[in-house]
C-alpha cells in the first residue's frame, strides 16, 4: 500500500503564471504556446474552443482575442514559490512535483487538523488567501492517484484507490512530466480503454510485453506507488555541500553554480548506481537563515534537470525576497533515489539530448571552461527567431540554456529583407549621413519614398560615392514600442574594394541614418 498523499493542483498553471507575470487580468482568454502548439490555456479560452495541442492559427481563429504567451519554465517555477510557501505554513514535508503541483503526505497533518476534509478546506483558504491563486485538492493513495483526484477535486477513501482509478480513461497515464504517448496509444489500439482494463492484466504479462516502462504504468493503474518498492534512503554522503564565496545574490550566478554542482551531484549518485527522484535543495544565507525545498520528480533527474530545479528554486527565493542576504552555503541532498538502471536511463551520459557523442562532450567541456574563465554570461549560441531586421532575428542564448525559438521564423514577416543577410551586423549601429546629388540630406517622405536618390554616404570621413542603391524597405513600429517605424536601404559605395551597406533610418520628425550592417 502506498502512502496517502494530498495533492494541491493549480489548474493551467503556465497560463496563470504567464498572466501574472505580464499583469494581465484573469478574465481574458490566454494560452501558452511552445513550438506553435498550445501547451496550456485558461478556462475562458477553453470555453471558446481552444484545446491543448492546437496550432496557434487555429486557436486564434476560434478565439481572436486570445493572448499568446511563450513557454517559460523558469517563470512558472518562480511564481509558484509563494504557493509552495503558503502550503508549507500549514503542513510539513511539502514536495513540489512540478510548478503547479504540490504533494503533501497527509496522515500526520490530517490527524492534527481533524480530518482530511478539514485539512483540504484549510489549504484551499490558505492558498487563495496568501498566494491569490485558485487551486484544487485531491487525496488518494499514491501520488498518481492523488493527482487524478485533484483534477476532479475528490477525496478518495483509503483503500478505494483502485476502484477510483478503474473507470478512468487510459490516456490519464500520459501526465505532462512523463511522456507515455506511445504506450497509451498502443494500449488503446489493443482495446484497453480504461485504467481498470489495463490493471486487470497480470503483472507478468505486462512485463513480458511492455518492459519496465509498462510495468511502471501498470503499477500506477493498479493504484500502487509510482515507483517499485525497493527505493531506499541513500547514505548521507551522497549529498553535496558547496560553500560559496562570494555569496550568491544573482540568479545568473546561481544558475552557473547550479550547473557545475548538478554535474558533480549526479556523477556521485551515478557512481553508486543510483539516480535521484526527490531532490532536496537547502541554502543557508550569510545571516544564518535556512531555506529548503524538496522537488519530486517522476523520472530520475538528469544533471540538466537538477540544475534547472536549483535555478528555479533560486529564482523563486530571490523573487519573493526570501533571503535577506546572499546565499553562502548550498546543499543538494538526494531525498529519495532509485537504482539507476531500473529505469533504463543513460546514466553515464546523463541523458542530455544532443550531447551524447564524444565530440560534443569535449566541446561542451571547453565551453564550460570558458564560462568558468569569463562568467556564465560570456558564451552564447544563437537562435534565429522570426523578425525583420538582421539583428532582430538573432537571439543569443547563454551556453547550456535551452535553445528554443520564441517566434516562428517561417511565418511571413512583411518588410523582412531577403537573403543574403549582412555578414557584419553592428552591435551598436554607427551613425552615417546620406546625401543626394546636391549635398542635401536624404530623408524618407511620408509616402514612403526617399526625397531624392542617394548620391553619397558620409561615414565619419570623406563622403563616398553611391554606385547603386535599392529600397526603401519599411518596417512598422511595434504596437506600444518606443521605437517608431524604420526604413532600410541598401547602398553600394565606390572604392577599392566596393562596400555594400545596409542603412537604416527612423521615419519620425528627426531622422537619423545609421549603418546597421555591412555585406562584407
Amino acid at each position: 500500500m502506498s502512502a496517502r498523499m494530498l495533492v494541491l493542483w493549480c489548474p493551467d498553471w503556465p497560463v496563470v503564471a504567464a498572466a501574472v507575470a505580464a499583469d494581465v487580468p484573469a478574465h481574458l482568454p490566454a494560452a501558452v504556446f511552445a513550438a506553435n502548439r498550445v501547451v496550456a490555456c485558461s478556462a475562458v479560452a477553453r470555453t471558446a474552443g481552444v484545446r491543448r495541442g492546437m496550432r496557434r492559427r487555429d486557436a486564434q481563429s476560434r478565439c481572436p482575442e486570445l493572448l499568446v504567451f511563450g513557454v517559460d519554465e523558469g517563470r512558472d517555477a518562480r511564481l509558484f514559490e509563494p504557493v509552495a510557501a503558503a502550503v508549507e505554513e500549514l503542513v510539513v514535508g511539502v514536495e513540489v512535483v512540478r510548478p503547479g503541483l504540490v504533494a503533501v503526505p497527509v496522515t500526520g497533518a490530517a490527524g492534527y487538523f481533524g480530518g482530511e476534509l478539514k485539512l483540504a478546506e484549510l489549504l484551499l483558504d490558505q492558498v487563495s488567501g496568501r498566494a491569490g491563486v485558485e487551486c484544487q485538492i485531491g487525496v488518494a493513495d499514491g501520488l498518481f492517484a492523488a493527482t487524478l483526484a485533484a483534477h476532479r477535486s475528490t477525496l478518495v477513501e483509503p483503500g478505494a484507490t483502485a476502484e477510483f482509478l478503474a473507470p478512468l480513461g487510459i490516456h490519464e497515464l500520459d501526465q505532462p512530466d512523463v511522456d507515455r504517448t506511445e504506450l497509451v496509444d498502443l494500449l488503446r489500439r489493443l482495446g484497453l480503454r480504461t485504467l481498470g482494463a489495463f490493471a486487470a492484466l497480470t503483472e507478468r504479462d505486462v512485463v513480458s510485453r511492455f518492459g519496465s516502462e509498462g510495468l511502471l504504468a501498470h503499477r500506477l493503474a493498479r493504484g500502487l506507488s509510482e515507483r517499485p518498492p525497493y527505493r531506499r534512503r541513500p547514505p548521507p554522503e551522497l549529498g553535496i555541500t558547496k560553500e560559496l564565496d562570494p555569496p550568491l545574490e544573482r540568479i545568473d550566478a546561481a544558475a552557473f553554480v547550479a550547473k557545475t554542482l548538478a554535474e558533480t551531484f549526479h556523477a556521485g549518485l551515478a557512481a553508486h548506481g543510483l539516480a535521484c527522484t526527490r531532490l532536496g535543495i537547502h541554502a543557508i544565507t550569510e545571516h544564518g537563515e535556512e531555506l529548503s525545498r524538496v522537488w519530486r520528480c517522476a523520472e530520475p533527474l538528469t544533471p540538466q534537470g537538477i540544475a534547472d530545479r536549483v535555478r528555479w528554486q533560486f529564482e523563486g527565493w530571490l523573487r519573493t525576497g526570501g533571503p535577506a542576504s546572499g546565499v553562502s552555503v548550498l546543499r543538494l541532498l538526494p531525498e529519495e533515489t532509485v537504482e539507476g538502471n531500473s529505469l533504463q536511463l543513460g546514466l553515464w551520459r546523463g541523458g542530455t539530448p544532443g550531447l551524447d557523442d564524444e565530440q560534443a562532450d569535449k566541446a561542451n567541456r571547453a565551453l564550460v571552461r570558458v564560462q568558468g574563465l569569463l562568467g556564465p554570461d560570456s558564451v552564447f549560441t544563437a537562435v534565429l527567431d522570426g523578425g525583420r531586421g538582421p539583428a532582430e532575428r538573432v537571439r543569443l542564448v547563454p551556453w547550456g540554456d535551452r535553445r528554443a525559438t520564441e517566434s516562428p521564423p517561417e511565418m511571413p514577416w512583411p518588410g523582412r529583407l531577403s537573403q543574403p543577410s549582412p555578414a557584419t551586423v553592428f552591435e551598436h549601429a554607427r551613425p552615417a549621413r546620406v546625401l543626394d546629388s546636391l549635398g542635401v540630406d536624404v530623408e524618407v517622405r511620408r509616402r514612403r519614398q526617399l526625397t531624392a536618390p542617394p548620391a553619397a554616404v558620409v561615414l565619419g570621413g570623406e563622403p563616398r560615392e553611391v554606385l547603386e542603391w535599392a529600397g526603401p524597405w519599411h518596417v512598422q513600429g511595434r504596437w506600444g514600442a518606443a521605437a517608431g517605424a524604420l526604413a532600410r536601404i541598401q547602398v553600394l559605395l565606390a572604392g577599392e574594394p566596393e562596400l555594400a551597406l545596409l542603412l537604416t533610418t527612423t521615419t519620425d520628425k528627426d531622422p537619423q541614418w545609421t549603418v546597421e550592417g555591412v555585406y562584407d
Partner: protein
Amino acid sequence: MRFPVFANQCVCTVGNRRGEESVVTVEAPVARLAALPGVSTASGVAAVAEHAQAAGRLLPVRPELRELLPSGGLRRGSTVVVRGSTSLLLALLAEATATGAWAAAVAMPDLGLAAAEEAGVELSRFALVPRPGAEFASVTAALLDGLDLVAVAPVDTSSSVARRLSVRARHRGAVLLSLGPWPGAEVDLACEFAEWSGLEAGYGQLRERRLEVRVAGRGAAARARFVKLSLPGETIAAPGFSWREWTEEEVG
C-alpha cells in the same frame, strides 16, 4: 615489399636545409636507389603517410571553396587567415559544422548570425564568445582544446601569443581561422576585389557577389594565386528567397 631507406632520411633533410650545393651531391645516389624496384625513400614514405593522414584529417568545405585551399579542405592543425570578407569566413565554416564539427567565434561581437545561418553554418554547434577582453589568449586556447574550428578576430595580438595559439591548434588538431592578419599562417586568403550584382538605381536588392581571392601562405600555398568565386553560392541563394515578402509591403 616496400621499405624505406632510413640512411637517406638525414641526408635528404640536410640537403634541404643547407641549400642547393649539398642537394646536388646527395641527389644522385638517392635517385639511383629510389629507381630500384621495391625501394622507396624515407621522404617518399613520409609524403604518402602525410597525405593519408591529411585526407582523414581534413575538415570539409563547400565544393566551390575547395579550390581556395591547397589541400582541398581545412587541414586540422592549420591556421588560416581570411582578410576582407566575413562572409567568406562563414562560408568556410559552413560545411564542417553541418557535418558535425564544432565551431566557435571569439571576439566577434558584430558577426551577422542570420548570414551565418544562410551560409549553411549549423548554429547549434556554433558557440560565440563575443567579449573575451583580456582573456583573449586563454579563451582561444581553451576553445582550441575542445572544438574543431575556432574563428578569432585578433585585436592587438602579439606575435608570440599568435604563435603559441597556432602551436596549440597544431597539437590539438583544431583549425584556427583568423579574420585579420596572423603571423605564421599556413594559408592567407585575402579578398582583393568584389563586385556586387542585384542593385539597379533604386530597385532590386543585393543578390550575389563575385570575389577575387588572393591565396598565399606557406608550404603548398607559397606561390600566390588568384581564385574567383561568387558568394553566396548558387546552392544557397535559392530556397529562402521570396519576392512576395517585400512586394506585399510595397503594396500595403
